[in-house]
């Protein structure tokens, strides 16, 4: 599913150094490390928002370094991403934000309506379909972001500090959702600072420090 072989990433300076690890299909991984360790940069690589500067990154058995640019959109549609800052589109309603990945994939509008309404009911937002993100609380926005990430049933689900804006109850509900996606077959990688959450939900852990992979167990 995910395979990195001595992958490095440079912006102006190198931010990731010689990362090598593999995440099999259907696995759940924590990605931990202090701020600035490179967690978000690694998620950007896995989300195909950047290409590796060095090494070999394979996603869905495709070598990303060699993939043509035109191939990447189709690969991205198999990845769900929950951003730390949500990245909801402020001019779209909750419904339209969640429907966006399905519309991009060209799904029929009738099917989109059914899937989105069902998912928003599941995350407790069935009464806010036409509300704009700015009118929602941080926790509600987070749930919309999560619904958008999972609505297309991605094979790889990435989350960057998904519980950062949630209280403990909501964080636990989110974890149940991520585990449910994992149980349905998605590979899940969650970056977090929340050591308590990691302790309550033991799983394989990748630990980054200063762009180096310190631990993979």
């Amino acid at each position, binding site marked *: 599913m995910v395979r990195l072989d001595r992958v490095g990433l440079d912006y102006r300076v190198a931010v990731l150094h010689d990362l090598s690890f593999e995440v099999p299909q259907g696995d759940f991984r924590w990605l931990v490390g202090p701020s600035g360790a490179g967690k978000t940069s690694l998620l950007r690589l896995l989300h*195909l928002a950047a290409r590796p500067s060095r090494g070999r990154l394979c996603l869905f058995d495709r070598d990303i370094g060699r993939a043509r640019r035109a191939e990447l959109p189709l690969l991205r549609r198999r990845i769900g991403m929950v951003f730390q800052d949500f990245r909801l589109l*402020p001019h*779209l309603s909750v419904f*339209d934000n969640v429907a966006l990945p399905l519309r*991009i994939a060209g799904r029929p509008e009738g099917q989109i309506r059914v899937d989105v309404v069902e998912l928003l009911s599941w995350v407790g937002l069935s009464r806010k379909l036409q509300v704009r993100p700015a009118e929602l609380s941080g926790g509600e926005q987070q749930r919309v972001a999560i619904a958008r990430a999972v609505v297309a049933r991605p094979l790889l689900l990435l989350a960057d500090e998904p519980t950062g804006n949630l209280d403990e109850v909501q964080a636990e509900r989110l974890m149940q959702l991520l585990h449910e996606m994992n149980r349905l077959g998605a590979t899940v990688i969650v970056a977090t600072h929340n050591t308590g959450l990691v302790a309550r939900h033991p799983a394989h852990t990748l630990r980054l420090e200063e762009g180096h992979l310190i631990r993979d167990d």
Partner: protein
Amino acid sequence: MTRALLRPRRSDDFGLRRALSDRLLPVLVGAMAFLAALALAGALAASGLARHWRQGAGALLTVQVPQPGAPAADAPGTRIDRVLALIRATKGVAGARVLGDDELLGLLRPWLGEAAGRIALPLPAVIEVRTKGEQVDLAGVVATAPGTLVEADAAWTQRLEVLARSLQACAGLVLAVVAFVSTAVVAVATRAGLAARRDAIETVHGLGATDAYIASRFARRATTLAGFGALAGLALAVPVLAELTRLAAPLTGQPAAPQAIPLEIWLGLPALPLAAAAIGWLTAHGTVRRWLRRLP
């Protein structure tokens, strides 16, 4: 409640109704369309005038034969009969006729007034020669009837034709400049929209949108604005064109009264909003696709 609220509509994923303003772009494209309409009408009118002159005055020769009843110098018969026979036998002549007395007096009246008919002056016979639009050599008639004058209208008609072609070239240049400025206006507006919606574009790109998906959203908006702007500019141009048609009527031999805008101009004008829409679509598409190359 959801069925009504969630009715499928043309989604505005990037909030372009705000980012690509419906004010500046249509107004500027409308102004360009107004100028283009005048230029196009000018080009078509100049073409029409050139054709009118070529088929009218340009195809006419006037031959004056003094002492028309006197014997011809080189053959039996009167001078007028001999000249007329020679003209009709000349290559390139479509027809020739001798003007009647009333027509002659009509020609003199502007100079001599109503007294023209009472003046006992020996008048030359006047022959109107209609050519087939090619050069005609009437040098032989002067030998047959010395003193005969051949006046070719073709010389000044050719100059008028050159003038008409110059007008057409100027109009073409104006249309090219208008197209260039419209392209630049759409490109600048699209770039402003890209800058305003950069975050949204990156998010949608990250959700798996292709370049074509993103570019088509911008292109659709730019096409709509440019097309409607051009329609408005065209609507403003029509009364101006009607007035210019009235003023130009004497050039085609018609009175300076209200005239219908020529059919060829009516047929040409609808091309302008279509051209503006095409410029909007192609320019926005190209601009967005170039911009998207910076994303992986």
